[in-house]
């Protein structure tokens, strides 16, 4: 994309749950205005990586620099301030179930700004319209369909006009048509606001539509980073297998499973 300074730089990130190392020495950088996809199978650590990027988890070692500032070393107050530049869409949308869709979108505005209620009202409408959800303001999240909930989640993430947006499995659990609509929304958001977007997914179909660059995670390490064409020409066996949608070789998979149980190589 552009040859500017990267927005997010991850350096030697190591994350563990207790003694189990989940991410082992992750390095990558995200450039401004690009859609950076973190791709990986189940258990590859991609959701853990995302939780570290937004500060919901602390890494064991390594650094995450956002706009050149060390995000991992910030105090919780500094982090709260810094988070206003970031928006996040959760896998299950994570809208607050007890308040209406409009109140959900308005929540960060009410908490962080001193805007008048009428202004907040207008801004909420604009954000909902942006994601193609006008007319559902007064519904409760439980009254919406899965796709609509995800769109409302995007609207809420956009409420504070962030510069970076994170999506956790945006198309998980949606039918192909709704999923494609969401891919298009991610593209539109990026194109309209020049949003730096980080998308965690395992869906090859949406990767082909949205990705500027892709980072493939495998067993807690980066298997490859690059544009889709670059990765398609990669000779890394896991990347080839993932892109070709080939199942694991049963015999080696069973052997690996036995190893993981016994701890003997």
């Amino acid at each position: 994309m552009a040859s500017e300074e990267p927005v997010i730089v991850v350096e030697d990130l190591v994350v563990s749950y207790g003694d189990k190392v989940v991410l082992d020495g992750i390095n990558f950088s995200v450039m401004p205005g690009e859609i950076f996809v973190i791709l990986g199978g189940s258990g590859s650590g991609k959701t853990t990586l995302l939780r570290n990027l937004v500060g919901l988890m602390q890494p064991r070692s390594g650094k995450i620099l956002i706009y050149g500032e060390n995000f991992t070393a910030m105090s919780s107050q500094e982090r709260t301030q810094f988070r206003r530049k970031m928006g996040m869409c959760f896998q299950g949308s994570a809208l607050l179930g007890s308040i209406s869709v409009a109140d959900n979108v308005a929540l960060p505005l009410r908490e962080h700004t001193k805007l008048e209620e009428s202004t907040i009202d207008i801004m909420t409408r604009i954000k909902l319209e942006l994601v193609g959800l006008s007319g559902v303001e007064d519904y409760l999240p439980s009254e919406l369909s899965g796709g609509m909930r995800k769109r409302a989640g995007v609207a809420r993430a956009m409420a504070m006009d962030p510069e970076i947006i994170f999506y956790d499995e945006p198309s998980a659990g949606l039918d192909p048509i709704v999923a494609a609509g969401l891919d298009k929304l991610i593209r539109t958001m990026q194109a309209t606001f020049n949003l730096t977007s980080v998308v965690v997914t395992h869906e090859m179909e949406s990767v082909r539509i949205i990705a500027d660059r892709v980072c493939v995670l495998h067993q807690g390490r980066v298997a490859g980073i690059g544009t889709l064409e670059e990765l398609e020409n990669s000779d890394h066996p896991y990347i080839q297998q993932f892109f070709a949608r080939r199942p694991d070789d049963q015999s080696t998979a069973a052997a690996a499973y036995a190893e993981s149980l016994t701890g003997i190589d």
Partner: protein
Amino acid sequence: MVALFGRVGRWALEQIAAALRVSVLMVDTMVWLVVAPLKGKGFRWRSSVERFVEFGVRSLPIVGLICFLVGVIIALQASYTLQKWGANRYIADLVAVSALRELAPLMTAIIIAGRCGSAITAEIGTMKVNEEVDALEVMGLNPVKYLVAPQFLAMVTAVPSVTALAMFIMIFGGWLCSVFVVGVESAIYINQTVGAIVEKDLLTGMVKSVFFGVVICWVGVYRGFQVEGGAEGVGRETTASVVASIFLIIVVDLVFTVLFYFL
């Protein structure tokens, strides 16, 4: 032997970690309830009032009914012994003192723990499972400020308020039973009641009930944040929450009873 030491050690470490988490929660609650509003960071008054209605006003019918029945029961039980000496008028003393010092606060707290403590755990637990707690944090909204502080204020005011009414209702139950079943004269009963109660009885009951409210709220919230892994986790922690808060209510009751006994 080594395994035993290992187990005890691990258990102790877990308990210390839990105690630490509880203390952090307590300090955080106080900060968001007292310090932050003074610094102009706001408090969610509306949410607190809504919670007060839920914990207090909506608990009234069931608390009232149960305390009325308990009043009737104590009066009858007391009469069983007292009438042997023709001392039925002392039912009034017994009902009044036990209602104020012990039974109204305790019954109220236990009912509210079952009704609302469990609801607090289930609500926060479900929000945690649905990543709503994470969402609050990512939006820069402190979950303690948003979820805990308003509930805490509501609970520590609702429990004493309901308790005060419960005391009255329990004494009324005792009066009704004594006058119409046992056959004590109404004026005598009322006189005895007024003579039996001192300020300290009321104070004991009210101080206790404030701390019962503290216990119910903190146990409920703590258990809610402990929820891991789906609906099953919510169920498990909700049960644990009710059991723990009833147990702790009794412990707090004992501590204060001992304290007031010697004071």
